[in-house]
């Protein structure tokens, strides 16, 4: 087994272990929430009798460790259980929401990642010019404002004043792909504005860092063009930090967008999670939490692996 294979396998095993730890922490955290599912679902129409009947029906009278082991066994078989509140299978509830979340994240990422890396490269290429300063200023201003504020500004100007885009991102009622892209443009734009700065600045910094190396100076002395120096000599060697920050931002686009979902009333996983937490619908909270953790861990593992492969010392090691 090569060194790189061992490293990759090690990362994967570590990822799985992290996922298991997260599931345990989540379960423990939920146990400490005040209140009670039966009370929440029944509203204050809950009398001690109806609450007791409901708890027994849902199996909430079992001790916590039994419920955790039952759940873990189910997950291993691909069965996430049924929602306590509505009785529907958790996979049915999560499926369409996950698709919506991935759609929005994909939409934003498809624009944000090339844009950020491109801007970062150009900023490094024309370092300390007006373009560099302008790009930095714009990106940093966008990230300095809370995302809901960015969202409200976009709604105010592009929706209420200009009437270009809807304020409710009803992807579920969109008639086709073009309509869906139009309906979800404002939340996507909000997310783009929030994530571009981080990736752009990291790209710029990584490239500039590499540009200070002796081999770049050598290339310059050979008379290689500035553009070629950056794209062919500098970029591949700056890839590791860039890939890492891109992965971090992609994970954020999937797991951290609940505020944007609320502002645009977008039926994504974040809203499902908030709904589930407030109604104490534990199977959904656990399942969504697990999906989020899995996304986060997977993207980070992928980023690690990508930077290992990008590193010639690891790639060509024995």
């Amino acid at each position: 087994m090569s060194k790189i294979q061992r490293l990759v396998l090690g990362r994967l095993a570590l990822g799985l272990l992290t996922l298991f730890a997260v599931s345990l922490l989540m379960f423990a955290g939920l146990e400490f929430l005040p209140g009670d599912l039966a009370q929440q679902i029944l509203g204050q129409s809950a009398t001690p009798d109806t609450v007791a009947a409901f708890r027994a029906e849902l199996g909430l009278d079992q001790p916590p460790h039994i419920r955790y082991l039952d759940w873990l066994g189910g997950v291993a078989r691909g069965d996430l259980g049924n929602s306590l509140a509505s009785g529907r299978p958790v996979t049915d509830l999560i499926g369409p929401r996950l698709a919506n979340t991935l759609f929005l994240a994909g939409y934003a990422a498809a624009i944000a990642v090339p844009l950020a890396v491109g801007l970062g490269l150009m900023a490094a290429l024309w370092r300390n010019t007006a373009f560099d300063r302008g790009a930095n200023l714009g990106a940093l201003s966008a990230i300095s404002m809370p995302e809901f504020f960015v969202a409200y500004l976009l709604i105010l100007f592009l929706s209420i004043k200009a009437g270009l885009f809807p304020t409710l991102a009803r992807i579920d009622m969109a008639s086709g792909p073009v309509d869906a892209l139009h309906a979800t443009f404002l939340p996507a734009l909000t997310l783009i504005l929030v994530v571009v700065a981080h990736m752009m600045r990291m790209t710029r910094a990584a490239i500039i860092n590499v540009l200070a190396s002796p081999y770049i100076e050598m290339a310059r002395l050979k008379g290689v063009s500035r553009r070629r120096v950056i794209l062919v000599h500098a970029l591949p060697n700056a890839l590791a930090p860039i890939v890492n920050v891109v992965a971090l931002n992609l994970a954020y686009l999937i797991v951290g967008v609940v505020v944007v979902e609320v502002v645009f009333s977008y039926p994504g996983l974040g809203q499902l999670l908030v709904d589930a937490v407030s109604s104490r619908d534990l199977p959904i909270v656990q399942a969504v939490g697990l999906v989020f953790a899995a996304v986060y861990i997977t993207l980070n593992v992928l980023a690690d692996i990508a930077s290992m492969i990008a590193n010639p010392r690891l790639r060509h090691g024995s």
Partner: protein
Amino acid sequence: MTRHDTLRPTRRGVLAGGAAATAAGLILPARARAQSGPQKGGTLRVGFTQGSTSDSLDPATFNNDFMLASGYAVFSTLTEIAPDGSARPDLAESVEPSSDAATWTFRLRDDAAFSDGRTVTAADVIASIRHHMGEDSNSGVKPLLEQIADIRADGDKVVIFELETGNADFPFVFNDYHLGIRQDTGDGTIDPDSRVGTGGYVIEAFEPGVRIELVRRDDYWKAGAAHFDRVVILKVGDAAARMNALMTGEVDLIDRPDLKTIELLGRNPNVKIHTQDGTLHYTMPMHCDAAPFDDVNVRQALKYAIDREQMIDTVLRGYGTVGNDHPIARTMPFYNGDLEQVSYDPERARSHLRQAGLDSLDVTLHTADAAFNGAVDASVLFSESARAAGINIEVSREPDDGYWSNVWLNRPFCCSYWGGRPTPGLMFSTGYAAGADWNDTNWDNARFNELLASTRAELDQDRRAEMYGEMQKLVKEDGGALIPAFGQYVSAMSTSVAMPEEISEMWDLDSQRFVERWWFS
């Protein structure tokens, strides 16, 4: 907006009902009123605060406005609350009590049919009611049905209820949103997931916590109802998102606009603000069996130490009316208007304290915005105004999460709200009778309980008015509930949405029956 507000909207709203509508409660441009009768057509798009992924079509689980409005549109009830506050027959054609009000005979309409063409029978009604009864039931309406000793059918179209004791208010029970009539599956039960109802609309699409799409039935049996062709209700939890959607015309009607920014909505010429007085009220219950609240003078001192007008002006932003420490709204039948209005009077509060043998008083008020929006501000205001009377109120802010299970009913002095009930009898039985589950003041007044028992079966309206009047006085002067204000229901809509001159104000939006009662002008 708090999450909790959206989740437990109709917390104690076991029974919807109507208060007499007053035109004064409506802020509408004159041209909206000048419209002639209802017109058919159009798609009404609604943005609702409530609605949750945990919603289902099982009527036992209904607990928010989203499901109330949808339920009423698809599944008719035996009775409905009329604009004048009375319970009028809906699926029932007539409702007859025995002389002791203990036996009630409901005759069903001959023409009422389900959306699959079958006509409604007594068996359907019995199965639908029984769904909420019995040991295993976890339905919110279960406590209200416990008074039923027996239900039987007399032929296909007559249902007879035998009650444990007489109850003159019994027809009001059947307006409850849990009690929409479903089909008997043949073995005396209903299929809780079935979408077949007798209402004016059928469900075309339903995604819990996201949206429901309703389409009008062309063969609806009820005349003069169901005017919109289609109704789409969207859950839009964020107040700003709801208001934006209304401003850009993406929805036609929203509930619960943010009162802080509602003036901005009012500036839009295509939008109108709508208010209803209703029976919603905010309370600060004191436990009458816990020191120091076990002394009636302490309770009275606190009632005179709160500045009600200030609370309405600042916390409710003017969308409310002063409460008089009893839960009966001005718009309800049997309201006692002869009682002296309690007002802010630090001197009088001090004199009550002296009668209790105290120079000053230290109490803790437990509060959270889960109790009602602005409860924390109201508590701080109260603490300031009470200081002038020598009363030190320590405001203890509790987490919103779990407020109803950990604080309400458990702490001797806290903030709360009631959605109200259509009749004084139901209101008193639920929240003020000794031993009631939700008697949140632990109040036990012998005279009050005696009066309550004798009004229940009293069919003579004058006698009832007299007894209910005395009960309101008792609650005001002896009870543990400080009721500073009645809130108004506020909604906003496109100017093209029209409604009848008189609407039911018991609950928001024509008591959530707007889907079949309103129209586009």
